[in-house]
């Protein structure tokens, strides 16, 4: 397989005496969806917070495009094009779609907002994701449905050239139709050349969208599988720890 865009090697993280990540390996490839699964408390969120630069790892190595990089601040992650879509608390209800998509990285022209440019770029981002469900870019986010909000949150991650997009349980609060919509969007995101890492507890969703599946069990990566070569029963086995992988092979 080609060189992964992101590779974690033996990363560790402890909170005091508690070792949450005990030497974890993870790879993500451009154009592929990698699902990160594991039981509650396995360390999934901790793993991606390290990638986002929010909560740096204690040890191990992060390779970006083959180069060792430091991820000690959200800014360093942003510079590499690593974007995180958090499941909750991701948008400001009182701002409109464009304002949310550019929050924290507004385009300026001679000291003030270049609203026209932001609006045009937001439209382009939504278009590349083939989003058709929002009526107006100047709608307040408060008036959107859960799926539309998730759409905006995902589009927010690609408005600036993203290389890796990480989604933490993007469908947890959504109904059937909206879940399908968001998974569709995730697929298109990967097809546009982005490496997508998606965390989910829903194996149906995982098998619907993922190319690769990585299973985290109590702070160690117990399986790295290709989705089309495995099945939900096996994955459940790895998640609950009843099946152990003898060999991890990428």
């Amino acid at each position, binding site marked *: 397989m080609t060189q992964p865009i992101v590779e974690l090697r033996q990363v560790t993280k402890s909170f005091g005496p508690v070792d949450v990540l005990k030497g974890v390996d993870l790879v993500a490839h451009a154009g592929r969806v990698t699902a990160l699964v594991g039981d509650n408390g396995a360390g999934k969120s901790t793993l991606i917070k390290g990638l986002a630069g929010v909560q740096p790892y204690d040890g191990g190595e992060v390779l970006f495009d083959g180069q060792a990089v430091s991820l000690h601040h959200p800014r360093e992650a942003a510079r590499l094009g690593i974007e995180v879509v958090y499941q909750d608390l991701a948008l400001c209800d009182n701002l409109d779609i464009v304002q949310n998509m550019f929050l924290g990285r507004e385009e300026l022209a001679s000291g003030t907002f270049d609203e026209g440019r932001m609006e045009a770029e937001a*439209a382009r981002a939504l278009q590349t994701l083939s989003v058709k469900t929002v*009526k107006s*870019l100047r709608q307040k986010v*408060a008036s959107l449905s859960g799926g539309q909000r998730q759409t905006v949150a995902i589009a927010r991650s690609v408005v600036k050239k993203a290389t890796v997009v990480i989604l933490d349980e993007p469908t947890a609060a959504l109904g059937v139709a909206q879940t399908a919509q968001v998974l569709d969007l995730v697929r298109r995101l990967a097809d546009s050349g982005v490496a997508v890492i998606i965390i989910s507890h829903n194996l149906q969703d995982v098998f619907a969208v993922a190319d690769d599946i990585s299973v985290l069990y109590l702070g160690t990566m117990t399986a790295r599988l290709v989705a089309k070569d495995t099945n939900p029963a096996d994955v459940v086995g790895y998640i609950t720890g009843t099946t152990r992988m003898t060999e991890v092979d990428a």
Partner: protein
Amino acid sequence: MSAEVDSEGPAVAAADDAPSLLGKGGHGGVGDAVRAYLQRVRGGDMGPLPAVGGLVVLVVIFAIANPLFLTERNIANLFTQAAPLVTLGMALVFVLLLGEIDLSAGVTFGVAMGVFVKLTQPGGMAWPLALLVALGIGVAVGAFIGFFVARIGVPSFVVSLGLFLGLQGVMLVIIGAGGTYRLIPSPIRAIQNQNLPPWAGWTMLAVVLALLLAVALLDRRRRAASGAPNPPASIMYAKLGVIAALGAFIVFYLNQDRGTAARSLEGVPIVVPLVLLILMVGTYVLDRTRFGRYIYAIGGNTEAARRAGVNVTLVKWSAFVVCSVLAVVAGVFTVSKVGSADAAMGREIVLSGVAAAVVGGVSLFGGRGRLVHAVIGATVIAVITNGMGLLKFSAGANLAVTGGVLVLAATVDALARKRSGATGV
């Protein structure tokens, strides 16, 4: 930026199955824009509409009830009476937008003005220096509140309540119970007691209109250059036309001689352009700079703002400083009007300031409201005070009516929101 306006916009890769989102949402014709606005209003986003309606009703009632109300002299008086409350209301908007409050804004300006007036007694400090000291007190108080709220996480209600009490003590020490100091520096007295020459009033209006037009045109050019659609130009001109007509009416009115046979008195009070300046600069900051946008973002969803890379602590802190400094400016307008400072200065006004903002449509939950809303709300309250004073109602009746209007405004807002099922934004 290119002066060439490309109506097609840059190469927006038009995916076949995804129609462009640009050009939707009220950027079509005038009809679309009006429909979009009506939809917003129906959706519970009424903004200052109820307050404007209320203002018109109040003015009509008072004009009918007492012919003195619409005299040139009373209208000029109304402007100078309203100026401190308008300014304090605008100050509070900066923290209300965060979902915070500053109950000490009034006594902050009380202390600052107490110090100012005392420093500028005959033989004292030069007034510009003393003014800097007063503004410095504003910065210090704002930074103090901001530290406890933004850094430590103490609720602003509590911190500013503590200061509200504590600063009254400071006032007593500075001024002494029952003591009063006369305001000496004539430039400060002039703010509320002297007027622009008539030509300067017209110039002020022309400058304001030119600025608004320039900003609007620049915006349109920029949007066109990026390929983003512009709302119909006719709407922009209609808005400017309304402002021009209203402004011309007011300037014309205030330029009439309202003096006595012995001494003529005419022109726009000096405080008016100062308030306008604060309104325009403040609106610019809130609408077009990161600081302003982040204030709204924090008021809407603090955690989302933090994750988007916003320095929440710094923005909150700064907003409290802006609030306190503008409060001191409101204090300057107050001493200028009253002509002296005593130990009770600013104690009463702060809740009226909050009321002004809320009546005008600013949300106490944060994230929603504009400076001009506070201006309209403060004007409503000032009109009630002035009109009921002319009708010889007692101060008690005046307070009762003001309170009633506040509850009414909040109720109208709550009902509008409830009907639309909108969240507290």
